[in-house]
């Protein structure tokens, strides 16, 4: 059961980035990006910040915690 909602996929697609490209930008594997998009992996603060910078969106809009 996801602890949060992740809107990474729509931000990534808005930036025309593939999962592979985003993974390379933030220094993780593509599988990690997949897990993140399904809200099945809780990222570290550093990774969350890196992703927010990569897709140029506020971190609190990508990861929505209840």
């Amino acid at each position, binding site marked *: 059961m996801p602890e949060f909602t992740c809107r990474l996929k729509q931000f990534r697609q808005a930036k025309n980035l593939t999962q592979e490209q985003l993974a390379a930008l933030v220094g993780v594997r593509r*599988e990690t990006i997949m897990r993140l998009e399904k809200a099945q992996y809780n990222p570290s603060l550093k990774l969350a910040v890196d992703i927010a910078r990569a897709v140029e969106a506020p971190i609190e809009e990508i990861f929505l915690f209840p």
Partner: protein
Amino acid sequence: MKRSTIKWLVAGGVVCAAALALSIWYAVAYNDSRLVAPMDFSTYVFRPQDLPMLCSGGLLVVYVLALFVTVFRWAFRAKAERHATSYTRTVSPWLGLLGFLGFLGFLGFWSYGVNGSVAPFIFFAFFGFFGFFYEGRLSHTFMDERYKENAARAQLQALRVSFALEVIALVVLGQRRFGGNLDYTLIAMMIVLSLSVALALFLSEYLLYRYDHDEQMEEGGE
């Protein structure tokens, strides 16, 4: 490990084995099998004829020490390089076949009956090498934060299971369940300890593979 280092190690091993074989032959043929057959060292008196055996024995000790130092230095260097590159080490899954050496542990039952030796039971620990099969499948994988998390989780779970097994064995064997026979208790303890080492080695690789692989199985590509 460098190819030249391996060559030196193999050559050293061959020289040591040859020197030992020659000195044993000399001792058996010309020195009443001194230092070859079991003898009472409390009454040992040096004889010049003992020199070949002493030299080859010393050479063997130096070789084994050098072998240990070289292997440990290589292992530490490889580990440091792995951390620096952030990729898992490259291992062939075929190394998992080494796990079959674990079956040599059953020789312990035979050797105990023949001459009371319990050392072969240690071979049960080799069952842990079956873990290479899974480590090989994760060869040269980029270790991002999720991978490291999974690795830590797998290692913790493996150590927990292994530790629980040891505690249970300690409690059960402490009750003298083998009719108070210390030999049997020692054998059971050796088997349990060897198997728990094997379990820790195997489970940490297997669980890591499961955590990583199962997650990928349910993921779609893009």
